[in-house]
Every structure is written in C-alpha cells, then in structure tokens.
C-alpha cells in the first residue's frame, strides 16, 4: 500500500531464557497510514512500549517484519522522532537549546536563521513562550514533555513515536496536554504512533486505536474513532466518545482480569 507509513507484520519477541522465558509479542500485525494518529492501547506488561522501541530502532524483533516509509527498520534514524515516557530532555540545556539540538546535528544541519525560525515556531506551538531560557529542573513535568514534543517536531521527522509521554502527569495536566498535543498535531499533520494505557487518552487523540491483548500479546481489535476532528474538550462528552469509551473500558477490564487470574506476578 502506497499510503502506509508504519507496518508491523507478525512481530514476535520474548525475553528470558529456558523456563524463565516469557513470550511477550506473539505475532502482532497492524499498520499506520500516512497522516494518521494511531494509539496502541493494552494492559500493562503487554509489550506496547516494546513495539514502539522497535519502531524507534532500539530493539530488534525475534521475528517479523517492521517497515517504516517502505524501508525495514535497522536502527534509530532522524526520520523517526521519539518522545519518551521518562523526561529525556537534556538537563544541562535551556529549553531553547533543547529544541534546537536536533537541528544543530550534522544529519539535519540548518542555517542559524532557519534554526531560530524553527525553534520559535515550536516554542509558540507548544506554549513555551517565556520559558526559552529556563533549565529543565525549573520546569514541571508537563512543561518538560512539551519541550520533548517540540524537540521531536523540530527535526521534521516523517513519523512521531510517543511512548506514554503523559504517563507520569496528574489527571488534570494530562487532559490539558492531550488537548495541546491534539491542536499541535492538527497543524503539523504528522503521522503518529502513541502508546498509552488510558482509554480516554487513546480515543481523544486518535483516528484509530489498536487494542492489544495481555501476554502473549496479539492484536485484540482495531477500532476507528468516530468522533469528528478537530477535537476539543467538548468532544469528550459526545455520545460517540462515551460509547466507545465504555466499550474499550469493558475490553480492558476483561483483559486485566484475565491476566491477573492467568499470570499472577
């Protein structure tokens, strides 16, 4: 398919040796189309972050095919921007320098004025005005992730990979960050893969949601989100939103029970 950006094809991986061996991903297949925002939802420990780590190029599947932009993934690449769950912005650099970092690398070298223009744009887009010269330690968790997202956008990647970027934030900040990211990506139109264990978050942000089962993990279902774009805070109370949320919460609950009964920790 011409419009396919990311394709996971029968991905398998396990960890550990001998009797300790745990199969985690047991033949996961799905794809993400150009311009699509897709969330991957699943119970904890199902390997959803592992999928993203593979797409980023930091981990190879035991078997299966992983293709981004028509090329098999062999390692990390500037075409795949990553936002991590942990705060991964550089603590010794100001907000401005963090966002400019990628553009100052040889791989994407830009002129001084291009860098400035680009950094200004993403500071504006992520609402970081006034914090340009702040150090990460002076910022809240939500602000740090805004910098991380701005930094990922700035290098102009073909796809954006986000690994539970709001996982460590409190509920209120989280809702706000979802709206900020949604608005930003409505402007940017990047293809995105977003890992989360929050049903609400997955629905709010995505065109489609890929639901994974518990270990050994396969794709449980892929659902289209019928809530029209662009979304606002009100979208959360629309009937389609609530209906889908009820359905996915039910699915998640059943899988959590199954996992708890089937594989006690």
């Amino acid at each position, binding site marked *: 398919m011409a419009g396919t950006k990311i394709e996971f094809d029968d991905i398998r991986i396990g960890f550990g040796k001998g009797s300790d061996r745990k199969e985690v991903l047991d033949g996961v297949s799905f794809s993400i189309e150009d311009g699509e925002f897709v969330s991957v939802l699943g119970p904890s420990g199902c390997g959803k972050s592992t999928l993203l780590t593979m797409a*980023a*190029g*930091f981990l190879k599947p035991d078997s299966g095919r992983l293709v981004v932009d028509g090329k098999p993934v062999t*390692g*990390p*690449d*500037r075409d*795949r*921007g*990553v936002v*991590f769950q*942990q705060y*991964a*912005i*550089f*603590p*010794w*650099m100001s907000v401005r320098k963090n966002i400019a*970092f*990628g553009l100052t*690398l*040889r*791989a*994407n070298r830009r002129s001084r004025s291009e860098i400035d223009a680009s950094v200004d744009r993403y500071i504006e887009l992520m609402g970081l005005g006034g914090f340009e010269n702040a*150090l*990460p*330690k002076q910022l809240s968790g939500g602000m740090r992730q805004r910098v991380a997202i701005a*930094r990922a956008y700035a*290098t102009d990647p073909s796809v954006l990979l986000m690994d539970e970027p709001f996982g460590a934030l409190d509920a209120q900040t989280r809702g706000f960050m979802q709206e900020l990211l949604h608005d930003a990506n409505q402007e940017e139109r990047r293809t995105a893969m977003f890992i989360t264990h929050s049903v609400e978050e997955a629905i709010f942000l995505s065109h489609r949601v890929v639901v994974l089962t518990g270990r050994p993990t396969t794709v449980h279902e892929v659902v289209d989100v019928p809530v029209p774009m662009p979304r606002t805070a009100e979208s959360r109370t629309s009937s389609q939103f609530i209906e889908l949320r009820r359905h996915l919460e039910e699915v998640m609950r059943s899988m959590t029970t199954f996992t708890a009964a089937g594989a006690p920790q």
Partner: protein
Amino acid sequence: MSRLLGRALWSLGGFALFLVLWYAVALAGVFPPGQLPRPDEILSTLVERFRDRGLLLDVRLSVLRVLIGVAVGCALALPVGFLLAWYRPLRLMFDPLISFFRALPPIALIPLVIVYLGIGEQARLSILIYAAFFSSVVVIYEGIAATDEIYIRAARSMGASQLELFTRVVVPLAVPQVLVGVRVALGVCWATLVAAELIAAQRGLGATIQDAAGFFQIEMVYGGVVLIGLSALVMDRLLALVMKRAVRWQERVGG
C-alpha cells in the same frame, strides 16, 4: 548574601571552638612543657619563618607540586575513565587491577620510585600523579558508566553520530562526575604530599615539617601541618565554587 555570611560564620565558629579547646589543653599543662605549643606561639613562629626564612617559597612549591600532580593525574584519568566506561570488557579486565593499585599507599612505593626515577623533582611528582590518577579514575568511569541511556537514545533518534553522541551528550553529562574525581584527587594529593617530599626534598611544606621534626622544632611541625591543612582547604573551596557553577543544571547539587 546574608546566608553566605551566616555559613561563613558557622564554619569560623568551628575553628574558634577548636582553638579554645587547644588553649585549654595547652594551658592546663596536660603535656610536659614544650610538647604542646599554644596557637599564638605557632602563629609567631610562622610569621617569623615567612619573614626571615622564605616559608612562602615552601608553600608555593607544595601548591605547585599538588597542582601538577592533580592536573597530570586527572588528565590521564580522563581518557582512561572514558574508555573503561565505554567498553565493558575493558572495565571488567582492568577494574580489579585499578583497585589493587589504588589500595597501595604511595609511601610504600617510594623506594621503588627512587630506584627507577632517582631523587629529583620527577620522582616526587610521579608519586603525586600516581595518587591523583588512581583516586580519580574510578570516580570518573563509574560516573560516566552511569550515564542515563535515555539521553543517548534521544540524541540517536534525532540523528546524532557517534562523535556527536560523545561530544554533545556523554561529555557534558560527565562534567559533574569528572569534577568530583578532580576533587577527590586534590584531597588525596595533599594527603600524599608529605610522602612525596620524603624523597630528598629541600623545600616544600612536607620537607619543612620533616626538617623541623629533625631539630625538634615542634612549633614549626605544627605550623607546617596548619599550612598544609589551610592550603588544602582553600583549594578545595575554590574547586567547590567552580563545581557549583558547572553543575547548576543538576537537580541535586552535590556540595
């Protein structure tokens, strides 16, 4: 500013208390006459030595030796530390060896140093360089090896080359730990100075102490000890100031 002043006052208070106790013990006659000089006697001996016997030269020589020892030792420890941190097999191979050499008191090596390097300045400096190298290399490589993988990954996902990873991520992240290594080396070098100056040194604080001990000039022995302590303290404070500036970005600033 007032907080800084407050801190300075507290630390002066510690010294003041120490001096009071010293006077008390000296005046109470716990030791036979002449064995424990009073602080003012030590001070007047020092003043006299600075005036008439060029004691400043000894201070300068010792400070210079320590500085050279720390500079050369740490300059060697830096690349070695990076190599050991970067390549795990090297670390596994050399870590026990480094621990072995680090455990050796430099004073035990003096006879060997004399055999191979004679009794000149290079023999004394090599003892200090040895002490600085082995005390800082472990701190440096353990710090670098603990570099959070997440920053490396972040940089790689933006297209950083190996060289860029090193110069723009690993090195800046390592600065605080390298400075800790330098600070450790500085402390160890001052502690080793007397041993280094045992090797036929004519001048220097260590040599001064030994001379004074030979003639039983106990005031001057104490004076030398005080000067070594003061020089070490001043240099440590200066380095602490540098560190405070260099690691401003850290969430937990190590004093």
